């Protein structure tokens, strides 16, 4: 899928999860710019610096967890498109993430097709 000019930020503290998510988005979204972060603090900083069009972010992360980062990013940019990718999916946590403005939730371990559908839907590439 060609989405030249778009930017995607992937943020996860697990080096393996980050690699697998990056491998998946790079394979699906050609022409895009990819940025990666390894905790919530980096997610906020990278968002402010690079203004990505789409963010995939874990919830349980050190230094600043996903929900705090989500809230800070949404405070900075109301239109931020943030997708939570997490293995922890308690109803409370999901409700909180949606209330804070997350656009979608993907349960780990993810299927490549789920990532593809999100990119198609959110970045409009076909």
């Amino acid at each position, binding site marked *: 899928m060609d989405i030249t000019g778009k930017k995607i930020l992937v943020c996860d503290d*697990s*080096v*393996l*999860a980050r690699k697998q998510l990056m491998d998946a988005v790079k394979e699906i979204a050609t022409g895009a710019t990819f940025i990666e972060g390894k905790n919530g603090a980096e997610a906020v900083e990278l968002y402010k610096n690079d203004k990505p069009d789409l963010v995939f972010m874990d919830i349980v*992360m050190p230094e600043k967890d996903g929900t705090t980062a989500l809230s800070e990013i949404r405070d900075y940019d109301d239109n931020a498109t943030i997708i939570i990718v*997490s*293995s922890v999916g*308690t109803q*409370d946590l999901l409700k909180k993430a949606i209330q804070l403005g997350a656009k979608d939730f993907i349960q780990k*371990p993810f299927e490549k097709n789920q990532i593809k559908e999100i990119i198609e839907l959110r970045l409009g590439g076909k």
Partner: protein
Amino acid sequence: MYTQFLGNYLLQKGLVSQEQLFNAMSRLSQTHIKLGTIAIHEGLMTAREVDECLYVQTREDKRFGEIAINRGYLTDEQVNELLSKQTPDYILLGQNLVEDGVFSYEQLERILFDYKNDTEIYDLSLDVENQDTINAIISKFFQLAEMPVDEINVMYLELMFNSLIRFVGEDFSPLTPMVLEEYPVTFGVSQCISSEKEYITHIDCDRETAIAFASRYAKEDFLEFDEYVMAALEDFLNLHNGLFIVNVSNTYSKNISLAPPEIKMDGVIYGENKCVDFPVAYPFGTIHLIICY
């Protein structure tokens, strides 16, 4: 999960070696159930009658079902019914062990009879695994581990076995749990679960086993012990514990939280009370699931 429990039973009773068990387990997905095996399982033929038909089959060019009908052991209808039955994997495991010459059909018949009695599996159809039976078998692990047999503990271990089946592979056998004061770390990942009490969960193994475990979990071929291998073990434990706290908070509305997983390369782990090691043997090595509380 009956297959893994049968493996545990066979090892415990000294009826198979680990090598024989893993050989038979590794072929489960490619094995088809034979009419004779399922006829014994359903109580329609004895092992002796099956052996007799198999012997005749080596001398006459006929199907097993045809021979069993000719000899009056089965009717046409029974053959058709048996052919359409779904058989649980643990019966396949038994069949593979017979084919490998580890024991005869007659011995298998006796072993399965004893296994069902021991584990109180009364439902002979067994197309669907019975939750009460699974709970009862898992409760025995906790009795051996001298841990309280409560619903949440049982849920944790059942979920662990399911996570292993789902994310690593079904070809494992749980071994007998061990109670320890503390556990010396080889290599592993720890994660603390907190509710009213604190539990330290830990998975531990040697490096070669970690590489094989990580390769299966991440569906990648890792060749050396590196950061990805370590991260795969962290991710597995985090995922499993994450599923657990979701289940607990959804089922019991309990406040329960998870600390980030931590890699441990040496030292010992211990809890306020004691540590229990639930070892799980895979063909590539043994994984130790440790719970300290």
